[in-house]
């Protein structure tokens, strides 16, 4: 009796499998981490592509936050069910790059399918992030953002500061913070999202100093962190001091601080340019967007900032027909009009100069002041080896370590020099460990 039911179940399964195989449309699985309004945009992109032709069907699936979707895809790969396209955040780039058997380079996907694709059409600071030293583009730039400075104009006016002039340097930021605090214009003066990304990674690029040797890890796995330079120590020491004076309020390791800004609690914020959509929706005050502050006495500052965000990776081991569909879809996404629209709707960077020009001539930036700050900052100067990006293995762990040291410093357990020395030491240990596994895999 039991055996019979098993047999029936097996038959039903076999029928179901062959039925789905018989369908003419090739399905392309796209795993991503976009939530809220961004999730709607992703679904629109897939829908637009599916309606534009009838051979392929892109199925976008939300798989949790960036680390979660990456872990899910890795587990799926290990059991032979990886998606066709996976959205991976920039700190996962080195991990994906060294997994040579698990991914198929985007350049190769496009070539094999005979699709036109020019990596040079992308902003170099964006494309450089995802391109090997040999010039092969490995993943497809999708959503990129950078660090910008936001300030509450109403609070500035209340504190007797000029609301139409944003502080340009760190000393100016702190002078403003002091005025805001003493006048009581708001209870918190300055806060920041993503401490490591803002106060180490982008801070270094913006001042044209290295984060690590070997062009911030882009020229070799044997890279070593250099974030305990006197300039870094000076900046962290300032943050520690401003924290104890109440000028700087710690917000958390990711984007928690953004809520502190748009709720009106904090008057100044450094965080992702992609936060602007949220700030726009929630802030009940006038605000300004400006470039990241810098130290004016550092030669060459400000340089240009580096990106965060994510790119799309094509997974290996799929059928040729599926790769054709993937190539067609990526080409659909690369369309300049679509790129410009994505930039305007989401606040992510326009990743091609053409998309930037289209947006500019459409008058979008005049109507939405501040939305071009991120682009201008990215293209402020031609990128140097210190400012074209970074590539570190195990960077998810390393960033956490950096932020742990930062928190221990703010809590008064150690000074800036010790915090940064510890960060370098712990980070380097992780890099060496990664170097070992990556060399074996490659």
């Amino acid at each position, binding site marked *: 009796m039991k055996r019979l039911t098993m047999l029936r179940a097996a038959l039903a399964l076999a029928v179901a499998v062959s039925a789905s195989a018989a369908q003419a449309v090739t399905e392309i699985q796209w795993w991503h981490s976009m939530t809220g309004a961004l999730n709607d945009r992703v679904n629109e992109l897939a829908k637009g592509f599916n309606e534009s032709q009838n051979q392929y069907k892109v199925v976008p699936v939300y798989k949790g936050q960036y*680390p*979660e979707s*990456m*872990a899910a895809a*890795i587990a799926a*790969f*290990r059991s032979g069910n990886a998606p066709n396209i996976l959205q991976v955040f920039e700190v996962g780039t080195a*991990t994906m790059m*060294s*997994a*040579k*058997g*698990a991914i198929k380079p985007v350049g190769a996907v496009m070539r094999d399918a005979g699709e036109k694709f020019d990596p040079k059409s992308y902003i170099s600071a964006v494309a450089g992030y995802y391109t090997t030293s040999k010039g092969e583009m490995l993943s497809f730039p999708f959503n990129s953002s950078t660090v910008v400075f936001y300030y509450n104009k109403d609070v500035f006016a209340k504190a007797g500061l000029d609301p139409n002039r944003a502080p340009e340097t760190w000393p100016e930021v702190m002078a403003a913070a002091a005025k805001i605090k003493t006048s009581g214009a708001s209870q918190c003066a300055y806060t920041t999202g993503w401490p490591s990304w803002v106060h180490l990674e982008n801070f270094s690029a913006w001042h044209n100093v290295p984060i690590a040797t070997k062009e911030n890890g882009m020229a070799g796995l044997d890279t070593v962190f250099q974030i305990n330079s006197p300039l870094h120590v000076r900046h962290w020491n300032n943050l520690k001091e401003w924290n104890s004076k109440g000028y700087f309020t*710690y*917000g*958390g*390791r990711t984007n928690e601080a953004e*809520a*502190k800004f748009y*709720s009106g*609690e904090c008057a100044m914020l450094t965080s992702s340019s992609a936060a602007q959509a949220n700030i726009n929706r929630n802030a009940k005050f006038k605000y300004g967007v400006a470039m990241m502050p810098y130290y004016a006495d550092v030669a060459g500052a400000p340089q240009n900032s580096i990106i965060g965000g994510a790119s799309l990776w094509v997974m290996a081991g799929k059928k040729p027909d599926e790769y054709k569909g993937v190539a067609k879809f990526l080409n659909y996404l690369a369309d300049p009009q679509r790129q410009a629209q994505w930039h305007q709707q989401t606040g992510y960077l326009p990743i091609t100069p053409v998309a930037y020009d289209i947006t500019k001539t459409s008058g979008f930036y005049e109507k939405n002041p501040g939305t071009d700050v991120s682009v201008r900052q990215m293209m402020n100067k031609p990128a140097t080896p210190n400012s074209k990006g970074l590539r570190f293995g*195990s960077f*998810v*762990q390393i960033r*956490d370590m950096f*932020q*742990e*040291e930062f*928190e*221990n410093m*703010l*809590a008064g*357990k150690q000074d800036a020099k010790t915090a940064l020395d510890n960060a370098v030491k*712990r980070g380097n240990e992780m890099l060496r*460990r990664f170097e*070992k*596994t*990556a060399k*074996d*895999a490659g």
Partner: protein
Amino acid sequence: MEKRVAFRSRWLPYVLVAPQLAITIVFFFWPASQAIVQSVQQQDPFGISVEFVGLDNFVMLFNDEHYLASFKVTAIFSVLVAFFGMSLSLILAVFADRALRFAGMYKTLLIWPYAVAHAVAAVLWLFLFNPTLGIVAHWIKGFGVAWDPLLVSRDAMVLVVVAAVWNQISYNFLFFLAGLQSIPKSLIEAAAIDGAGPGRRFWTIVLPLLSPTTFFLLVVNVVYAFFNTFAIIDAATGGGPGSATEILVYKVYKDGFKALDLGSSAAQSVILMAIVIGLTIVQFRYVERRVQY
């Protein structure tokens, strides 16, 4: 006085325990053996290169001062959770047991928190204690106490302990209540007639008779604090500030699932497994001797 049932058939006992054995093998022995295998390997996240490294992963862990600090954090956290979780629920159970009116309502309300998922409980407490939004944080500040779980280790520890204890109270409460109700009323009445007050009756009669329940709950609560609280840590503090609330099991999760360092994560779970097995043996050998069934 033990009752034993003798089975004539040779295979029947095995068939009877087979379902339980199957579950134990699939959900415990198999993953545990995988963890042991992976703990002596170093591999990239995708499993493309797998290398046997012997005890390297363990050596690295024990040379890592942050990992060693995590032991201390775990010990403090587990003791606090087990102590407060059990003593608070015992007090509640004693009161609920003696309640004359609305006893049913008290019991139902006290059991509710158990239905709340750990992560949800953590978010709930996080909102109450959030320095910016939290109403409780507001009261605390009203009393002139500085409160900042984002930077002050002690505050963060308080937050996760409160959330973990609250989530576990119902479970403890249920067992204590059942234990209390199974204590013969005649014993307590006899003591009352002999002139023992409520306090004395509790310490000399109720508590010793509850010892099997207390012992069982001690084991369960320690295991709970060690293993089941990572959702609370993840949602409330993420192990911070610094690594002040990074308990061992949270580090296993973080290194394995977020950082994709499977070798180290597997080695950590093997160590954790050894600790819990060790603790349970100690509890059964030494604590159980003093338990009267």
